[in-house]
Each structure stands twice: as C-alpha cells, then as structure tokens.
C-alpha cells in the first residue's frame, strides 16, 4: 500500500474529509468512501457511465485521481433531486422509458444536466453530439434523446 494523504472533496455541496492513496481514482473514492454513485464501466474513458460534474463540466470520474478533484465542486446524480421532488431530467427518464438496467443512467443524467445548465438552448444536433459521448447497451438511445429533449423544454420554461 502506498502512503495515503489527507484530502477534502466537496461533493454535492458537502465536504468529505478523506485519506486516500494518490493513485486512487475519483470514481472508486466516490463510491467506496463517500457512498455516492459513480458506475465504472470501462475505466478508460470510453463508456461515460462514471460521468459526474466537476465545476459544472461533465467529466469521466474514472480518468481522474481523487486528489485531482480537491478544491473542485463535484456533483453526482444524488444532487439532482430536491428532497422528494425529482429533477425534470429524472422525471423525464422515467416518463420516456429512457433506462432499462440503469447502469449508464447516472452518467447520462449528469452529462445532460451539465450540458443543459451550460446551454439551455442546446440544438437537437448539438444535443445528439453531446449524448453520443456516452454508451448505453440496453435502450438504443432514442428514449434517452426524447427524455432529455422533454426535460430541456421543461427546464427552460421552468
């Protein structure tokens, strides 16, 4: 075991005081030490299941070391709901059957959330480009696209 160092991660607005090896990846630390969601599908940055928001930008938490995320605002899927009220994206995914096994879902939700918060008027073409960043093996994507479009409309009109 390599020497551990003390870091503090800010996740979903909370501060987590952690002791980690520098080589520990962010996805593993979020899951194992913070008890939050970061599903690792490939650990080489292709599938995007591990996508979280780092300072508002979608990022592959499998390609970051936890120590690199210090001082950043990290958001996982647990940040979307407001108490008992689901985020429009979450509700839209349910309404449009945009998930089956659910493994890629947190990654898609954070990817879409980051993209739409950055640009609420994202065009359909740009949205498709964004969503093509992540893999889904179950749904064939069309319901995910429909869900994100529906949520985008709702997020705009609020």
């Amino acid at each position, binding site marked *: 075991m390599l020497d551990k160092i003390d870091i503090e991660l800010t996740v979903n607005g909370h501060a987590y005081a952690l002791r980690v090896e520098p080589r520990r990846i962010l996805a593993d630390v979020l899951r194992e030490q913070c008890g939050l969601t970061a599903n690792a599908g490939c650990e080489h940055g292709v599938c995007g299941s591990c996508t979280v928001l780092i300072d508002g930008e979608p990022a592959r938490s499998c390609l970051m070391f936890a120590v690199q995320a210090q001082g950043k605002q990290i958001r996982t899927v647990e940040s979307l709901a407001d108490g008992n009220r689901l985020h429009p994206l979450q509700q839209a995914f349910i309404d449009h059957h945009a998930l089956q096994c659910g493994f890629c*879902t947190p990654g898609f939700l954070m990817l879409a959330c980051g993209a739409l918060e950055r640009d609420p008027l994202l065009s359909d073409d740009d949205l498709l480009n964004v969503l093509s960043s992540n893999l889904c*093996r179950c749904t064939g994507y069309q319901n995910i696209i429909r869900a994100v479009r529906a949520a985008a409309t709702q997020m705009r009109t609020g």
Partner: protein
Amino acid sequence: MEYFDLQLEELPLVSDRLDRLERTTSAASNVTSTQIGRAVTRLEDLPLVSGGGRFAASISFPRQLHMRVVRADHAHGKILSIDASRALAHGCVAVWTAKDVTEVPPIEFRPTSVKGLEPYCQPVIARDRVRYVGEPVAVVFAEDPYEAEDAADLVSVEIEDLPVIVDADQPPGEFAAGYSTEPTVIRKVYGNVDEIFRTAGVVVELDLSIGRHSGVPLETRGAIANYDVARDVLELHAATKRPHANRDMLARLLHRTPSSIHLYECHIGGGFGVRGEIYPEDVLVCLAALRFSRPVKWIEDRRENLIACNHSRQQHHCIRAAVDSHGRVLAIDDTFFHDQGAYVRTHGTRVAEGTAGMLPGPYRVPAYRVTGHYRLTNKTPAATYRSPGRYESTFVCERLMDAVAAKTGIDRIEVRRRNLIAKSEMPYVRPVDIRDHQVVMDSGDYAGLLDKALARIGWDDLYAHLKRRRASGEAVGAGIGIFVERSGLGPVDGVRITVDSGGSIEVVTGAASVGQGVETVLAQIAADVLGVDYRMVRVVHGRTDRIDYGFGTHAARTTVMTGSATHIAAQNLRAKALKIGAEMFDAAVDTLDIVDGRIIRKGHPEGASVTLAELASMLTPAAMAKTGRDPGLTAEGWFHSDAHSYPYGVHIAVVRVDRETGDVKVERYLAAYDVGRAINPMLVEGQIVGCVAQGLGGALLEEFVYDPNGAPLSTTLADYLMPTAHDVPDVEFLLTEDAPSPTNPLGIKGAGEGGISPVGATIASAIDDAIGVAGAVTQLPVTPMRLRAILRGLGS
C-alpha cells in the same frame, strides 16, 4: 414522492407514440383489463435515477478480501511453473493455483442428449495447460483491490507454447491426449435432400460468416461471496439469470447441500445472456469465502470482461439451396463451423443446436439437412448471446432468400412471400427438434405482418425515392429481413402471492431481472386480476431464500412463464378473497368485484366493502381453528408449458454507403414485431429497439479480433466498438398482436430477444441494394475496411 401521489389514470403514459398498436382479438381474461396492455411507467426506475442503484461494485461486507485473477497471456501452452513468491512478499493474503483447488470439478453444462462433452469442460483454474488468452492460471487475495492487482502483476507464469488454432474451419487439432478439438457434430435431416438436389433446376450456393461478438453489458461481471459461519450458509451476491439452477450447480461443485447456499440479486447492469452463468470466478469467490471465513469480492475490469466473459456468434456457413423456377425453396443443405472457443461452457452445444433447428426460419422448406461442426479453438469460450444461434441462422437464411431472388430474377419480397409458411398452416410442425423439443410454430401471420410493415414504411414510394437518389449518384438502398423467434422456455414456473395487513401485494418469484422491467410487467398482471393499482405490488426476484423453486430469466421466458404463473396465482388469490367476501356479504361470488383493493358488490361501489388488507388481517393462524382456513391471504400459481411460443417480425432498413470511406449510415429502420399480447407496449418497444441497436453493432461494428497466435486484439472499448447515439436511428416500431400464443392463458410471446436476429441480414440486404450488387455482403460485421475491399473488388 410526487410520482406516487398520482392517481392511476394520471400516470404519464408514453402511449401517444404507441397508439399504433394494432390489436385484433386479444386473448381474453375473465376480468376487464385495466392495467394489462398499458404503457405504464416502471416500478424499477425511481432508485435507478436517483442514486439508489446497487450494482455489484457497491456491495461490500466488513473485513472483505478482494480477489484478482492472474490470466494466461498465451493462447495455448503447457504451464511449466507459477512463481507467486514476489506477490506474497509484496503483501497479499494468499495466492492459489490449480493445486489449491483440486477438489473442485470442472464447471458443468446443462443436461443434454449430446454425448462426449465432459472432457472439454473448463477447470476453475487452469491445470496443466492454458487454452485461451484470459484463462485463469492463478488467483490472488488481498485486503484491497488495488493491492490485489499489484500482487497479481507480480505472479510469474512460465508457459511452453503449443500449436494454436484460431480458425474453426481448419482441421481439428488436439484438445488433450486422445481428444480432438471437434467434440461433436450436430446433424439434423428430414426429406430426401440428395434426390432433390440431383433433379433441381436451380441451385444457389453461399459462403457466409458471422463475426465473433457478444453481449458486452455496460457493467462488467462481479461476485461477492459471504460465508455466514453462524448459520452455516454461503451467500453469493450479484447473482442473476438462473439463481436456483446456479445455486444447485455451486452446491455440486463445492460439495455443499443446496439449502446451505443462498444467491442474491442486486441491480444488474445488463445481461444479454452472458451474465449469470457460472464462471470460474463465481466458484472461486465462494470457495475463498468458505476457506478464509471472510467475505470475498471480485469485480472484473473491462479488459477481463472482453477476454473472459462469454463470446458468441462466430460461425461459418456453406449453404446450398435447391430452388424451382418460381423461386420456391425445395431443399436446403447447410454445413457450418461453430467456433466455440477453448472450452465447452455451461450451455454445452445449445447455441449450435439452436442454429441448426431454426435455420429454415419462417419458410416452408420441404427438405433440410444441416451439419454443424462444433469446434474448439484457442479463444475465449463462447455461449449464448441474445437470440443465440438465431442471429446467425437468420443472417444465413435471409441472405439465401436474397440470393434466390437474384438467381431467379424474382423480386426479393415476392420470393419470400412464395416461401413463407401461411397462417392457415399454423401450428406448423417443422420435422426438427432442438434439444428434444420439436420445433412447432404455434401461431403466426407472417405474410400479414409483411404487408403491414411494407405499408407502414410506404415501400413503393420509398423505393421509387431511393431509385431517384441513386440516379443522382448516392449509394442508397433498402433491405428486408423476416424472422421467427423462439421464446417462453418452459417447462414450468411458479409464484406465490401474498397480501399483507397493510394492503401491499407481494409476488414472490424465482425470476431474475437483468434490467428489462420484470417487476413492472408482473405487477401489472397481478394488479389487473386483483383489482389493485400496480404500484401496490412488490415483486421479489433473484432470491433463492424466498422461494423453493425458480427457473430464472433467460430465453425470453419471463413474461410468458412467470407472467402466466402470476396470472394463475392472482386468479387463485382473487377466488379465495371473493369466496370469503361472499360469505361476509351473504352474496353470490359472481355479484362481487374487487376495485382499488376493495371487495364490493358490482354496481355498488359506495356500499358495504372490505379491503384485501382487512381480509388479510382476519386470516390469522388463531382464526384457523374456527374457520378451518389456512392462514394468510396467499395463493400459489403454477404454469406448465412444454411448448415454446414463436413470435416473429419483419425489419426494413434504409442505408447510405459512402463509397470513399466504406461507412454505412443507417438512415431509417423499421422493426415490425408480433408479440402475441403486450402487457406493457412501452417495455416491448424498449426491448425491440435495444435489440436493434445491438444488432446494428453486430452488423457493422463489433468484432473480437485475434492475431494468428491467438492474442486478442479487441481488449478495450476503443477497439471493440459499440453503437453510440449517432449509430442508431430513430427506430420505427410497429407492434402487433395478431397472433396470440395458444400456449399460455394471456396469449403472450416473449420480446426480450425479438428484435436482434434479422438485423445483420437486413443491413446486408440494404448494403447490397445500395451498391447495386446482389450477394456482395457475405461476412459480418461489414466494417468500413471490408466494404471498401468489396467496392474495390468490384472496380468501383
């Protein structure tokens, strides 16, 4: 939650797109359907969208050890030595090799009448030989998963190379002394094939290959074993697919009694047939938990998944058909080479048998002979992947139909019409068996669905439009594929339904869930019969400790088998409740109904009533003495069916080929499917569209490539390419219920595998049409390089 506050009628429905559900006479149930057939949203979703997903990587126990597998990096060789000293010095807890697990037999396969497969089973750790890159040669246990990986890298394995076989077509070699790499040949025949070929006017011959690919779920495999010393119970977590059968197999391999092993399902990140079989790693975590008296956790990485999880699909067919001048197929003679990889795994020869039995497809083939060479090669072992054997057989059969059209000059669609089995011939007995079950197509109107699909896409206008585009220089074309599927694997299923004193309904099943919506579908069926909101129903699955017998989720069986058992159990429970209600109200049973969980007199919803919850509370063990009734508002239901049900479909694709790059853009894709009866049309659509996406992957992108030494080259998701949102068009889905199955009370057929098998063939047909050369595509996947080679070969 807001969502759960909504009334049933207010639940958001996705049916505006699915209102084109074409129903004729649905199979009747004796209550008005309020929830069967509706596109209600899923019970499963809330936790999965809000961070409540518990996949294998999230399952941990205090004091757990982590297992890491040391894998062979030679495709075939003798193990000369394994040196674990550096690993142990580094600080892991233990390193096992084959000598540490001698009491564990090789992993079994399912019962089969095929003889002689036993010597080819895989040991949990390689013994004297390794036979594929990725085969376990040692396992390391450590306190931390990163340390386990470090230690595994320090284990040195010395291997002396043996000749490598990467091609199932080449002559068989030696698996072990006295055993060749062709364990068996699958043969089926009916009709006088040779005589027909002798006198045939037209003979069509094709040489076709389907590339090696597989399910590749987004979640890699994992297993967590926990031995509860106090209860002497071994627990295996993150199990799925066939919990009871797997438990029984583990019991035999570990020499424990079955009731001392419990399997638990958590959330499962996709199955597709490849997850949920017993692999060496499952046995090893269990053995380790028993020996160390500590929980043992194993999560594979993606490279391991691509080289150690079941492969599938790779077959090479040499097919001949005798045809008359009207394009009718008189006989088919097919010889194929099935590339099984290094070992026989838990499915034995089932995939190859399925190919052999289903190859004639939806067509009337008067005479047929198939010879399936089941061959072992030095590659990752293969088994079932969604629509196993049938993606392969449909590709071959549909390529054959296009070839018949080309040879006879008859239109592709017309040729198919002339050969399709007619509705009037149902049930149609094909004189072949698959694993001792005769192929009997239960119901179907293949020509009718073909008409509907052509009408839906507007075939004539579409084709005229494509011709104009071709005239202006675009390489665009349309292809078609017709298929029949096999679903509802029996022979039996059973559930138990109980109402608790709070009014919640629990349906305990032996089913599993791989993410497809099992809970929702079964809840809809139960709720429909019991007169409650489906959201009051909790479905238990994937737990061997909750129900004694279970048959799992695979082969598109759950809605058919577990759904039918649920229907029967719910009817039994309803009858029980109404009988008691009838006594309470001093009324005849047929004057009562259950609405919103209350037993009422029909037509008097505001009158005297009793809730199911109240009834459940009254049926106590103490009350038994007075009433003579068994306690609890509970009932079982068993459904027996030896007959498969055969859903079917028609796919149409429009593609544009880029002659420079070889890229294929799928512009349109129509999937028409007759499901017999849809419990939830939205979930059926989800299955079919997901199938199409995977089918496109197999048609254009996905392949496990090996070098001549048997080294796998597709070891990351940057090499093994899967479809993205750019690669899958907006699939137009036409769902029909024209041919309910007579084999079960609700008329259901399965949908889990129903949209993948024709995709390779349909895309091939479209590409041929786009480049104007019939029969150009003979090999999947049609990668850009292969298509460029085809185009260059044609002088384009």
